[in-house]
């Protein structure tokens, strides 16, 4: 079990003593600390790791990085922590890791779904669109579930995510994306100037290609050692934040870049306090993109067999992890870099069966070195066939023009068609790529933001040039940050295009050959050797041409073959965007990192157009998949949305109140006593208020203090009512319209002094009313000397309502004469209650005598308790929002937002008495004159009494005049409020009905599923129509 047959003693950088055990599909293995899951599997000789998406073909590990399309596994920590679709190539191994393969049944090596491979002619390009068109009804029930079950990725966890996630906004002058040679050099050069630098790399260690570039030497050290030393140096600098295991996944406007850091995914037993992942939202002065390049595979028949992999990946597994991907390895290439892999393997004692080079006359030092090591090099030849299904067993070589075939046994086959510069982040920044004819690569062209691409992603070749370019970019970024303020360009300056480009075209500063200065400020490190990223081919190789039926895969993850692309063109797709959607090439979770260029080249060839004329598909965020958890961050559980509670909430909670959500507020809905259901509690509360008194927590009401010499003028403009003549100490019910004439909000307004109003709004309207008031004040009436302050939360509000209300407050009030003469209905006074300051309103939302006691919020609960003690002496109760609704409906008082819906005028709601008839201007004055608002046939608010007094209508129910008419019936209105009124001994309702006010006494009908209910149109006041009880 601990034996790792493909681990080569002495090779790689891992420590043999540090083993880590893991399981894959239930089988126990062991690897080493520092392994990825992929390298550990390979060390144990396991290549087969998954089944493909559509055809269920056996698949192995293709790459050693984020581009991996095949080796997607599920990592399971416990039943709630199952992460599907993890790329084994980026999952760090930890002791106890449990992984399983996906998309196979019953097992990875025998998968029933593989019948799709045999039936594959059915599944060619566009098959979803063609095959499952008819019958339409079968799509949801039959086709989609079947397709989803058969074609799929891993299974989502079915339990709530127990992990938590961090988030951080970060700001820096220079963000470096990618910690390879170029990125490290850029970060170092920028950091040495003292500016804030963030360096992010998706791998667990910095170094990029230095991980496998065995010959690289920088400043006299091995490339890898230089990278580690440089990272350590950066880590020690206070102005630098190093973020390993961190992927820059999205590049947004104004250099806003999303990074996701995997904090615990590599840990065997993560500390519970650590977030699983952390989202970094970075705003950077300049972004240095050093994303490197991604090796392409060769497109040939059955190129997806396990054991066939990218040459650089094999090299990485050897030089970093000390793992040989096979014992007898073949190589198929169209460029130099695969030779390096062959040479490294050969030197490590692995047999190289042969190098097959598609180029006619490969030459140069690496080719010579390969030959001198005794490796067979076949040039002008192609691999046209491979043996083996669950693992490659042979490769068949044929000359490019055809001819004799030779089959060579192999147990692994390395391939390299060249390197694709990783322009994803550049493209996401809205930069435009340009096609470089010489190297057949898309490279950064026109820059849209303040960023710069350096190194392989910029098409820069060779270690020396890459280092120099990165270093120069870092220095330049720091210069820009220290000089002009790059974050705040003066307004009206034309956007600076291609700043990055400028510094690219500047010649890199000449390297100081032989000066081993260790990268002291201002000097780039020196380089002894380097490899090339250029060269290679695009498109399919021989044997995968237009006339064949072989499966030569372009996109491994979505099972798209060269043939599919050609078929898409044949069937009329011309734009690469259409080819992409028809074939799904590049649409898998890997976003075509290995496949896009091949797909494009094949489409271009089939279309007979040059590649740039066909265009490149759009790169979109995220670069690699991002978990929902990291996007949600802290915003789950109690932080999903703020829960607002009133100062009196604790008392209500202790009383066993049931709460309802009103926006973000929790409001006491009703206060049930032992044995009471909601109905009983609400009936009791309603009766008690009218018989004695009740206490109601109205603290959520919006409150705005309007202060200034022009306060009354301002109120005149914002409300329909007249305010100038309202005496200080008096209140008025105010209506606020929108400019279109419809009711926007309402509330009681108290005038505290000639220049000071205490305005109340609805609970839900508090913020928007304040916003609208500020809007008019700042932009339409800025000449007025008046200021607005939200005081909603300064004051707790206790409504004391009912015939005994005065008796209840009287013993607690100081300094206010609350007799009816001195303090009539609709008055306001400032004084004290229980020794604390109060703004005491005499007002009523029940129709009974009432007061609203405003006290500073922190005193709310204690004052409530004092009032409660007084109230108990008189048999008062606490009542909740439900009773409040019933009591106000008994009096026909409207609730904006319930009885109005944004299309109701004051006249419609019979509150047009609140419009100042002599006023010359107020918001909505012109809207009220609109033809539609003064025409007949408007829906008007009326009362409804059901013929059967016991029946309570449903709110929202539609109303018709004639129940016998044919369906669809003509609806003339709807019920807006409906309750059982214990005080009236019957049900009551409010409704908006066409011409309702002229239909008094008429019978209308409310058709319900089980019956039709009859009701009579009445006035809106059901209780105490004369209003005597206000002073009762």
């Amino acid at each position: 079990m601990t034996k790792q047959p493909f681990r080569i003693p002495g090779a790689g950088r891992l420590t043999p003593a540090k083993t880590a055990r893991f399981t894959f599909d239930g089988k126990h293995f062991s690897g080493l600390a520092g392994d990825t899951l992929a390298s550990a599997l390979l060390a144990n000789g396991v290549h087969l790791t998954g089944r493909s998406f559509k055809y269920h073909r056996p698949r192995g590990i293709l790459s050693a990085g984020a581009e991996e399309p095949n080796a997607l596994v599920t990592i399971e920590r416990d039943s709630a922590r199952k992460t599907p679709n993890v790329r084994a190539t980026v999952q760090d191994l930890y002791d106890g890791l449990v992984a399983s393969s996906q998309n196979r049944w019953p097992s990875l090596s025998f998968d029933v779904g593989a019948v799709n491979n045999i039936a594959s002619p059915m599944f060619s390009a566009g098959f979803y669109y063609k095959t499952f068109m008819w019958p339409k009804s079968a799509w949801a029930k039959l086709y989609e579930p079947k397709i989803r079950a058969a074609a799929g990725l891993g299974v989502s966890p079915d339990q709530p995510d127990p992990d938590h996630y961090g988030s951080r906004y970060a700001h820096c002058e220079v963000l470096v994306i990618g910690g390879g040679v170029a990125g490290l050099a850029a970060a170092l050069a920028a950091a040495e100037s003292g500016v804030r630098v963030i360096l992010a790399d998706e791998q667990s260690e910095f170094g990029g290609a230095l991980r496998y570039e065995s010959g690289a030497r920088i400043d006299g050290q091995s490339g890898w050692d230089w990278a580690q030393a440089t990272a350590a140096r950066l880590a020690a600098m206070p102005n630098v934040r190093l973020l390993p295991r961190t992927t820059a996944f999205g590049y947004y406007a104004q250099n806003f870049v999303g990074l996701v850091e995997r904090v615990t995914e590599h840990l065997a037993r993560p500390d519970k306090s650590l977030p699983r992942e952390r989202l970094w939202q970075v705003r950077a002065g300049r972004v240095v993109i050093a994303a490197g390049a991604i090796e392409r595979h060769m497109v040939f028949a059955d190129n997806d067999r396990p054991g066939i992999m990218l040459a650089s990946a094999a090299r990485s597994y050897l030089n970093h992890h000390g793992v040989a991907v096979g014992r007898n390895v073949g190589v198929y290439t169209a460029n130099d870099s695969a030779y390096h892999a062959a040479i490294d393997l050969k030197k490590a004692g692995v047999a190289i069966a042969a190098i097959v080079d598609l180029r006619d006359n490969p030459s140069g030092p690496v080719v010579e070195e390969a030959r001198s090591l005794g490796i067979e090099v076949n040039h002008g030849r192609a691999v046209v066939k491979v043996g083996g299904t669950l693992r490659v067993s042979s490769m068949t070589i044929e000359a490019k023009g055809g001819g004799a075939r030779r089959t060579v046994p192999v147990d692994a086959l390395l391939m390299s068609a060249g390197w694709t510069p990783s322009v994803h982040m550049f493209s996401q920044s809205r930069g435009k790529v340009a096609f470089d004819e010489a190297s057949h690569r898309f490279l950064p062209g026109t820059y849209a933001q303040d960023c710069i691409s350096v190194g392989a992603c910029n098409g820069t070749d060779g270690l020396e040039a890459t280092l120099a370019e990165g270093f120069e970019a870092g220095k330049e970024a720091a210069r820009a940050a220290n000089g002009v303020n790059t974050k705040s360009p003066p307004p009206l300056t034309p956007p600076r295009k291609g700043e990055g480009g400028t510094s690219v075209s500047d010649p890199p500063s000449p390297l100081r050959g032989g000066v081993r200065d260790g990268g002291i400020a201002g000097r780039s490190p020196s380089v002894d050797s380097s490899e090339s990223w250029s060269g290679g081919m695009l498109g399919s190789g021989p044997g995968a041409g237009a006339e064949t039926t072989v499966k030569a895969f372009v996109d491994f993850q979505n099972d798209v073959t060269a043939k599919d692309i050609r078929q898409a063109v044949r069937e009329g797709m011309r734009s690469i965007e259409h080819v992409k959607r028809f074939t799904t090439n590049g649409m898998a979770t890997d976003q075509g990192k290995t496949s896009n260029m091949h797909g494009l080249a094949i489409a271009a060839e089939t279309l007979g157009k040059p590649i740039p004329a066909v265009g490149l598909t759009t790169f979109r965020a995220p670069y690699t998949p991002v978990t929902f958890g990291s996007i949600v961050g802290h915003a789950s559980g109690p932080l999903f949305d703020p829960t607002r509670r009133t100062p009196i909430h604790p008392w209500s909670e202790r009383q066993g109140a049931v709460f309802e959500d009103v926006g973000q507020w929790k409001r006491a809905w009703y206060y049930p006593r032992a044995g009471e259901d909601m109905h009983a509690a609400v009936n009791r509360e309603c009766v008690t208020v009218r018989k004695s008194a009740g206490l109601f927590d109205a603290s959520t009401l919006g409150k705005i203090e309007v202060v200034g010499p022009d306060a009354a003028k301002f109120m005149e403009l914002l409300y329909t009512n007249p305010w100038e003549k309202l005496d200080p100490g008096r209140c008025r019910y105010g209506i606020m319209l929108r400019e279109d004439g419809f009711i926007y909000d309402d509330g009681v307004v108290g005038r505290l002094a000639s220049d000071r109003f205490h305005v109340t709004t609805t609970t839900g309207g508090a913020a928007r009313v304040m916003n609208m008031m500020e809007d008019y004040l700042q932009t339409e009436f800025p000449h007025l000397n008046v200021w607005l302050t939200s005081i909603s939360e300064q004051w707790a509000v206790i409504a004391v309502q009912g015939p005994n209300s005065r008796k209840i407050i009287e013993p607690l009030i100081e300094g206010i004469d609350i007799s009816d003469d001195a303090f009539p209905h609709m008055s306001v006074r400032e004084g004290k209650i229980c020794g604390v300051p109060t703004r005491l309103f005499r007002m009523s939302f029940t129709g009974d005598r009432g007061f609203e006691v405003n006290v500073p919020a922190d005193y709310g609960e204690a004052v409530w308790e004092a009032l409660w003690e007084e109230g108990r002496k008189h048999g008062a109760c606490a009542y909740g929002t439900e009773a409040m609704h019933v009591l106000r409906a008994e009096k026909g008082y409207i609730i904006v937002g319930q009885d109005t819906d944004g299309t109701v005028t004051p006249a419609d709601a019979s509150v047009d008495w609140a419009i100042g008839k002599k006023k010359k201007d107020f918001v909505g004055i012109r809207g009220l004159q609109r033809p539609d608002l003064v025409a007949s046939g408007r829906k008007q608010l009326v009362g409804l009494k059901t013929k059967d007094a016991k029946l309570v209508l449903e709110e929202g129910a539609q109303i018709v005049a004639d129940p016998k008419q044919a369906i669809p019936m003509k609806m003339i209105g709807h019920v807006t409020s409906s309750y059982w009124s214990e005080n009236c001994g019957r049900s009551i309702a409010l409704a908006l009905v066409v011409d309702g006010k002229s239909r008094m006494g008429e019978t209308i009908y409310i058709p319900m599923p089980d019956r039709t209910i009859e009701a009579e149109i009445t006035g809106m006041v059901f209780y105490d129509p004369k209003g005597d009880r206000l002073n009762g």
Partner: protein
Amino acid sequence: MLLIRCPYCEEERPELEFRHAGEAHVVRSGELASISDEDFEKFFFIRSNPKGVVFERWRHIHGCARFFNAARSTITDRFYLTYKAGEPKPEVDFSAIDTGPAAWANREPAEPNVAAGAEPGKSD
């Protein structure tokens, strides 16, 4: 998330602090009560909704709480300038300003997203 320069705070602030508030320079008549239906329609219902530079109102609601005006491109989302409420609409020929590459989502379907004739890494 955009950065928006608040003319009152005199610096760029994150978009989260702001709220959009509709088109700017829509004049509310001092004699609103007596304007014609047609004029009211223009005032209340009709908005320019241009492709290109739009003058609009924003409020730094979670900052200094001031309303202000901005000229922004509806194609690129780029803010050209911001200025205080009440200041006159600036006379600027925005067509003279290169708006830069549009969001790819907004490009014509036929327009390839590859810079025509541009040399890699050598843009000016």
